[in-house]
């Protein structure tokens, strides 16, 4: 037990140690930036001072709290769009993996959708779905479809002859081989696709907001930019970064737990959980 804590401590120490140069560099950049604006090398209308951005952050996030409403609107659009796009993508990928003709008929559309710049669909989608959240959700769904579809399909199409022979030798049906072998084997790639898809869904939501909308961080940001309030605009941009981070790490969290067998630490935890469940079941 003491062994465990000591390894964690050293790991924590070294991580802290590695972070220090990064912090110093970041602080240095801020200081030079601040100085450059104050000394008049850069016009503050084009690039505001870091301290001005901090002021805008304080205003938006803490004094007025304007950001939260828009923040949750955009977050919702991205998540709902992602859920719709991902469901369609995974369903089509599963059907394509199960049926060769289906794959042949679907692939051309998927490829055309991929090579067409998805963002260019924005005006059409807004015409179809209106100025509200619907069009943002739709664009998010369209943009996240392809990476999830391709990754899931690639994962499901990986075939391991040796393992399939093993399954057949114990009398497994094709359905069993699919559920117990091909699906779990595809999960790492599926999650890789989901992570990309979540990011592109956010892009979709924000781009649609830039185009036509009444609420959301995209709207807020373009409003500030029109008013040449660059500090607030950049402070709003940070909220998008924050949404991106929340989405990415939520998926990372799920990935870690569902595809637990790739990471040593998660495997150990899963091992212990399985042992507990087993002992409970066997009545020991």
């Amino acid at each position, binding site marked *: 037990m003491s062994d465990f804590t000591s390894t964690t401590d050293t790991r924590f120490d070294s991580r802290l140690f590695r972070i220090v140069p990064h912090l110093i560099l970041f602080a240095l950049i801020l200081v030079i930036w601040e100085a450059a604006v104050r000394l008049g090398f850069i016009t503050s209308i084009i690039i505001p001072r870091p301290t001005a951005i901090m002021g805008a952050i304080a205003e938006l996030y803490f004094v007025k709290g304007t950001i939260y409403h828009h923040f949750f609107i955009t977050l919702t659009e991205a998540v709902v769009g992602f859920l719709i796009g991902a469901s369609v993508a995974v369903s089509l990928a599963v059907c394509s993996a199960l049926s060769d003709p289906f794959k042949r008929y679907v692939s051309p559309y998927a490829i055309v959708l991929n090579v067409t710049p998805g963002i260019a669909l924005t005006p059409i989608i807004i015409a179809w779905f209106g100025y509200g959240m619907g069009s943002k959700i739709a664009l998010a769904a369209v943009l996240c479809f392809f990476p999830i579809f391709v990754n899931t399909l690639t994962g499901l199409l990986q075939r*391991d002859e*040796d*393992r399939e*022979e*093993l*399954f*057949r*030798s*114990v*009398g*497994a049906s094709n359905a*069993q081989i699919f559920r*117990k*072998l091909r699906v*779990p084997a595809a*999960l790492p790639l599926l999650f890789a696709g989901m992570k990309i898809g979540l990011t592109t869904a956010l892009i979709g939501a924000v781009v649609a907001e830039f185009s036509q909308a009444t609420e959301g961080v995209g709207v807020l940001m373009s409003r500030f930019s029109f008013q040449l309030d660059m500090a607030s605009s950049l402070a709003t941009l940070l909220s998008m970064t924050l949404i991106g981070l929340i989405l990415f790490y939520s998926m990372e969290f799920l990935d870690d737990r569902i*595809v*637990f*067998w790739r990471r040593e630490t998660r*495997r150990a935890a*899963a*091992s*212990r959980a*399985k*042992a507990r469940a*087993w002992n409970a*079941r*066997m009545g020991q």
Partner: protein
Amino acid sequence: MNASVQAQANGAAGKSVINAKGLSKTFGGGAVVALNDANFEIRPGSFVSLVGPSGCGKSTLLRLIAGLIDRTNGELAVHGRDVTGPRTDVGMMFQKATLLEWRTAVENVLLPTEMAGTVTKADRKNAADLLRMVGLKDFLFAFPSQLSGGMQQRVALARLLQTGADVLLLDEPFGALDEFTRERLNVELMRIVGEVKATTLFVTHNIAEAIFLADQVFVMTPRPGQIASIVDVPFERPRPLSIQTSPEFNTLVAQVRDILGEDH
């Protein structure tokens, strides 16, 4: 079907578990003769080694018996029943452990049971017992990536035994392991198949290993793949490793080497 009636008659006589008559397999529409005209009977509980150079049809013969591929010609019956596909009384183990990395050792062992229906408490207990039997009692909940190559093969062996099959087909099961581990596992395998009273077919490239383990050695030669000769091994099983230095043992090695020609 004449063949299966014939085979059933053979099985009813009760002296052989596996019967093959004129058994042949070709690939590519006859271009490759993987196995040509194999004839043999295997007695219940006996251990048969298949030895021969690469491409002589060892894996093909095992796959045929496992029902994983269809024969081109001849008759083949296990327990007097014509072989038409994979069966629960025949189990197979491969050179690669082919464990599922998202399952613990014991969950991997339970795979055959799961494929056959629901897993009961008795099945679970059996799986745990089998892992103990192959020397992995402390590794029930380990994932494959936490196990060494030898331990992974032990899990695969336990999984094979979990099928409950009494015909065990092992295709170079320890071929990818180092000499020491292989020798140890061979000795354990001999003990285990003796305990579960299984009929065993064991493929290897190694003549000494083939003789050490078996009651009978099928010596196979390539182009076309065939059983060139069946050599009886007179020693009692289980045997000590030291038997390999005895003159009788070395006479048998020389005899098999002779049949194989200059390849070995």
